[in-house]
């Protein structure tokens, strides 16, 4: 609405002239009807005495004098006009008719004035109501605009904060990763130092033993030149053999070398498992039948199964799943391996797979020793193991966790000591399978 439109405004009580209050056409019929009573001229004169409405004949100069009567017409009680009536021949009813005419005219004027005043007030009130509405509307628009801005700012703020949080979370993740790497390095140093320590010590002992071997060899050579009889050679050699405790040295050498080979194997195993942990994201993904993978995995592990073990499988049809199959197989292998080690006899292991609306769920259940509640939070930590030194690297579940997380899935472990462990792997079916 255009607000520059001038308001229709009235000043209540403003003076009004007769001509503003009545129109000619309103009073003409009244004046006209007076002529029927013998009146020859009926007129309403304004405040200046000029005719506002004039009916009948004006008296021409040569015509005889007429009887005339003039009566005031008031506006708000103030004479503002004159009713003029002229008659040629006097008539007894003339004055009474004049009175009636004046009353009628006065009534018209007064009622018109009342109507005008009413209209003016009414218009003022309507105008003011309208102005109020316009004002209210403007305030509402203003406040709406403010709220809209507020909402927009809020959105922006939320975005900013979200970005900040995302950044912070990224940093935190980075720090956690660094911490994990640190932990991993520390664990690795310890795990590798230990075999390296005893390999080095064994090699040190072995190199001393080697000196004795060399001495014995040299002695044999010399005795063969010096002595003429084998008996003499044997006698002197045996004497030195015993002095150098060669029987023990030979025996211990075998032990030392065997231990060293074991140690080297252990290092090699740790390094091999670390490969899974350092995650090979660049590896190509393949559409894989996870059920087939599980079956092959179980078949390849068959020689490790205890003789009295019971294996149950319930593999329901699954869609092809895009993944790094060897990695997943390694992860599943680690989980199954834990199950196999959970009980020395009477083990029951069951492996099942099923399809849920958006995920593939693979469950491994054993009736083994279970995991202590205190240990549960740490089972995925690298190098965490409850088994005797040497029998577990503590990397199995850590690697499994890393692989499954890397595939966008999750791994959940429920366990009760003495009853068994349920390990549930959930893998999201990507867009390709949606």
């Amino acid at each position: 609405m255009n607000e520059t439109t001038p308001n229709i405004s009235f000043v209540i009580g403003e003076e009004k002239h007769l001509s503003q209050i009545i129109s000619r056409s309103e009073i003409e019929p009244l004046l006209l009807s007076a002529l029927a009573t013998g009146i020859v001229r009926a007129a309403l004169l304004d405040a200046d005495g000029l005719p506002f409405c004039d009916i009948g004949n004006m008296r021409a100069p040569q015509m005889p004098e007429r009887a005339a009567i003039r009566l005031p017409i008031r506006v708000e009680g103030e004479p503002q006009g004159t009713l003029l009536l002229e008659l040629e021949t006097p008539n007894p009813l003339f004055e009474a008719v004049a009175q009636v005419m004046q009353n009628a005219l006065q009534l018209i004027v007064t009622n018109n004035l009342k109507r005008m005043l009413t209209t003016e007030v009414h218009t003022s009130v309507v105008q003011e109501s309208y102005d109020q509405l316009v004002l209210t509307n403007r305030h509402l628009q203003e406040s709406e605009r403010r709220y809209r801005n507020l909402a927009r700012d809020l959105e922006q703020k939320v975005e900013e904060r979200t970005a900040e949080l995302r950044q912070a979370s990224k940093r935190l993740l980075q720090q956690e990763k660094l911490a994990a790497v640190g932990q991993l390095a520390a664990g690795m140093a310890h795990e590798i130092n230990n075999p390296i320590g005893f390999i080095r010590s064994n090699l040190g002992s072995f190199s001393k033993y080697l000196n004795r071997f060399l001495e014995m060899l040299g002695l044999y050579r010399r005795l063969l030149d010096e002595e003429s009889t084998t008996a003499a050679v044997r006698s002197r050699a045996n004497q030195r053999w015993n002095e150098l405790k060669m029987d023990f040295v030979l025996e211990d050498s075998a032990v030392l070398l065997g231990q060293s080979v074991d140690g080297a194997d252990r290092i090699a195993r740790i390094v091999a498992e670390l490969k899974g942990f350092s995650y090979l994201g660049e590896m190509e993904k393949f559409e894989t039948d996870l059920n087939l993978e599980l079956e092959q995995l179980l078949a390849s592990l068959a020689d490790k199964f205890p003789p009295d073990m019971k294996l149950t499988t319930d593999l329901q049809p699954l869609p092809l799943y895009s993944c790094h199959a060897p990695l997943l197989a390694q992860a599943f292998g680690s989980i199954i391996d834990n199950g196999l080690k959970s009980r020395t006899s009477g083990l029951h292991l069951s492996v099942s797979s099923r399809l849920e609306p958006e995920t593939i769920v693979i469950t491994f259940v054993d009736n083994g020793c279970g995991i202590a509640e205190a240990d549960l939070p740490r089972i995925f930590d690298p190098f965490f193991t409850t088994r005797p030194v040497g029998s577990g690297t503590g990397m199995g579940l850590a690697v499994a966790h890393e692989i499954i997380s890397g595939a966008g899935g999750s791994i959940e472990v429920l366990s009760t000591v003495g009853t068994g462990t349920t390990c549930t792997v959930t893998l999201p079916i990507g867009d390709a399978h949606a």
Partner: protein
Amino acid sequence: MIEFDEHQRKLVLKLVYYGPALSGKTTNLLSLHDQFDRNGRGELMMLDTTEDRTIYFDLLPFFYEAPSGFKIKLKVFTVPGQVRHDATRKAVLQRADGVVFVADSRTSMMAMNGESFANLEQNLSLVGLAIDQLPLVVQFNKRDLAEVVAEEEIRKTWSEAGLPVVMASALQGRGVIETFRMAVELLFDSLDSKLQLREKYGVDRAAFLRAIMKT
């Protein structure tokens, strides 16, 4: 001031009877109409009313013509007292030269009086009139009723505000003329200081008052 026409030598003034609903504003005008001689005044015009409640306004005009030919027309208005007719009150209050605030003396009506007076202050400022420069007379009406606030108490309260207070019973015609006279005198004096009515236009205060208040 509704109109001041130096050429036509005419002044049209406005006096407004304000106050809470049913405090007797119209009754005041009716009483003035009845008590004054018709020579000095016009007819009382009552615009549409419903059940005796003013919804637009009432108007009682007074006329005076000085020997110099200078004319003064004083239009006395009432406003509707009901809260809902605020826009009408504001419209009537425009260009007022003076205000008579008609209060209801009954104890139970004191809060209403207060509200209405606050409304008067607000509306005056909205129509651009300064209440401290406007001739204003307070009338405590309905003194004839029981359970009215004591005169002494009223005077104490209102004289602190520096406003003239008149006790009245409009229904019995008491205090009505006194109120009107006080308001007209204040109004005249205020105009005289602005327009020099006497020096410039030959309007005599006493003659003016006599003319419009002929009983």
